[in-house]
């Protein structure tokens, strides 16, 4: 996949990138006048249809491909854009393979550049958090764990003339059914936003089994993100710990910002509790936001200042300085941008593009950073006028990731290679027709 290629009818309009993409490569694309985000999975690869051998290797790979297709179809069927609140989920509009590679398409969404969500008025913050919570609720209501909730997987949007910023959730490729996560080596997640039980699960702590990885994993991450959106920083913790979850696992309480209201402090304390069962459900989170005052910051209380020397300064996920960029632009992950968002160059921009920051921005997105650091969009990003952003690409859950690879364009010297199947097979397509704000698709 490279800029200018046409894949499945979609013309690639930005340089593909792996930035923040995990197991995928992503880019922006257009088709029939519509703007899209396209993600190329790095795995699995689909055996060629014209390879009719029956070997153990091919049997396994055909089975993997069939399971992959089924998983994606299932998620697409379960997450319907017409469901209440579904408009805040950026869902796939197409899923197909071309040659050996799988692709997924979502509508491209323009994001706003919200540099400092913490500077919003309480009511604005409430709306932002509520829309994020509503998005998550759509998943939790059907027993799905997002699995990789972090700022880079949340697109902040403000339509022209709208009074409020809203949040749209992207990248469900790492999602899993509550209580049935992928194996410890395969499960996705971010080391900063990961929940305590997720960390212990990966460490193969015998006290944590698959059944302990539930929607509460997302609630922990949402607690951290809420703190970030309201204060501009993640909760602090003792610097001996590598992450908030590590601190919590060690029995430490996170150092929450004392400017937060008592109600919010209580909510966040509960959301970041060590025991998954002690965390509130998403409905409780939403209900807690009924009164915008909950999101207000107060003057720091006397005697409650932090002790920076002993606490770590958590990463905010925001782009920080100008890090080197890469040729691909996008970003997806935690501190970085996420694929699916605009052509930015996120942490990696290409030479000549805007300095990215942190290396993580979302490609193509505008400099938005919504609370979580998204890198500024690259200048060369596809001109959309506004920062566009793209859906996340990603990662796991749904699985496979994509691989950047090679553009199919076999050179003459490939004469010895068997002919490749270039047939595109549509594996799921919701069709277009969604509103311009998309996102919901």
């Amino acid at each position, binding site marked *: 996949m490279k800029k200018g290629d046409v894949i499945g009818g979609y013309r690639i309009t930005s340089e593909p990138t792996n930035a923040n993409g995990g197991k995928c490569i992503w880019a922006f694309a257009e088709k029939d006048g519509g703007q899209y985000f396209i993600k190329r999975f790095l795995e699995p690869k689909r055996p060629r249809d014209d390879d009719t051998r029956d070997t153990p290797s091919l049997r396994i790979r055909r*089975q993997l491909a069939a399971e992959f297709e089924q998983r994606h179809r299932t998620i697409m069927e379960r997450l319907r854009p017409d469901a209440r609140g579904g408009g805040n989920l950026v869902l796939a509009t197409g899923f197909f393979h071309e040659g050996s590679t799988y692709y997924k398409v979502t509508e491209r969404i323009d994001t706003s550049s919200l540099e400092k969500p913490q500077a919003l008025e309480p009511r604005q913050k409430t709306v932002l958090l509520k829309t994020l919570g509503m998005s998550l609720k759509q998943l939790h209501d059907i027993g799905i764990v997002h699995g990789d909730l972090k700022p880079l997987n949340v697109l902040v949007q403000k339509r022209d003339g709208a009074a409020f910023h809203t949040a749209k959730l992207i990248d469900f490729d790492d999602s899993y059914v509550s209580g049935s996560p992928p194996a410890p080596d395969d499960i996705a997640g971010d080391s900063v936003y990961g929940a305590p039980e997720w960390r212990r699960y990966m460490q193969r702590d015998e006290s944590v089994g698959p059944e302990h990885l539930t929607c509460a994993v997302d609630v922990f991450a949402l607690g951290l993100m809420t703190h970030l959106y309201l204060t501009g920083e993640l909760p602090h913790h003792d610097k001996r710990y590598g992450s908030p979850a590590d601190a919590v696992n060690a029995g430490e309480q996170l150092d929450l910002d004392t400017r937060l209201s008592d109600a919010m402090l209580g909510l966040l304390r509960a959301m970041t509790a060590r025991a998954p069962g002690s965390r509130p459900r998403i409905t409780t989170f939403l209900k807690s936001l009924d009164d915008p005052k909950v999101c207000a910051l107060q003057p720091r209380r006397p005697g409650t200042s932090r002790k920076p020397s002993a606490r770590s300064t958590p990463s905010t996920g925001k782009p920080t300085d100008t890090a080197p960029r890469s040729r691909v632009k996008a970003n997806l992950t935690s*501190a*970085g941008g996420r694929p699916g968002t605009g052509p930015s160059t996120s942490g990696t921009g290409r030479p000549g593009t805007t300095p990215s920051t942190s290396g993580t921005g979302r490609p193509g997105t505008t400099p938005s950073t919504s609370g979580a650091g998204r890198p500024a969009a690259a200048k060369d990003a596809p001109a959309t006028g506004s920062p566009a952003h793209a859906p996340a690409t990603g990662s796991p859950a749904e699985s496979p990731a994509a691989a950047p690879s090679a553009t199919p364009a076999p050179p003459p010297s490939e004469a010895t290679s068997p002919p490749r199947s270039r047939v595109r097979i549509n594996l799921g397509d919701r069709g277009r027709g969604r509103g311009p704000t998309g996102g919901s698709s």
Partner: protein
Amino acid sequence: MSANIEQYQGNLQYAVDIVLCVDATGSMFPVLDNVKASALQFHDRLNDVMAKKGKAISQLRLKVIAFRDFGDDASDAIQQTDFLHLPTQAKDFEQFVRGIDASGGGDIPESGLEALALAINSPWETGLDRRRHVIVMFTDAPAHPLGTVGTSASTYPKNIPSSIDDLFEQWGYARSQTSVMEQSAKRLVLFAPDQAPWSDPIAEEWDLTLHFASKAGEGLEEFEMDEIIETIANSL
């Protein structure tokens, strides 16, 4: 990057192993210095990027395989290091990298697949909590088919597959019974021309492979190393 003894022992431990396969034939002369410079800065830059993300690597090891062409001069067709721990073995790493000179190569295809086979069969880290195993191939040329050139030379690698199909099985896929690499940990990053075997079958058919097309004398610029660093940092 090394473990901080003051750190809480329950923190999640990440291990990163990287094998750099570097085409050191004459045609790489215009870009080899860039590749070497990028390699030497790799450790510091990865640390910087990780720190900005609020993340840390518990163990980083690098291995370098410089390759030329067994069909031209088998005596220096492969030169390699063991896995070197950084930063503690940074001097050994630097000494080897600085000693790579662009020379030889003979015909256009090089012995890149032999280098890739050696990389795949490296002694990858199997401990710690989560691992990332990355092979990076820098070349501006297609490759001789495995097992066809220089196989009788005493320096030809022993115990590597004799065909690309067999090498594919060693690279593996989920549930593979023949893979020598950990599926969830591995990545193959190709800075190689849009030619066989790099674009097809490798980039087209192999899991977890990223291909950035290069041209002779071009395409191995600094930002590409940044791409690798981002790929690693974002995956942890």
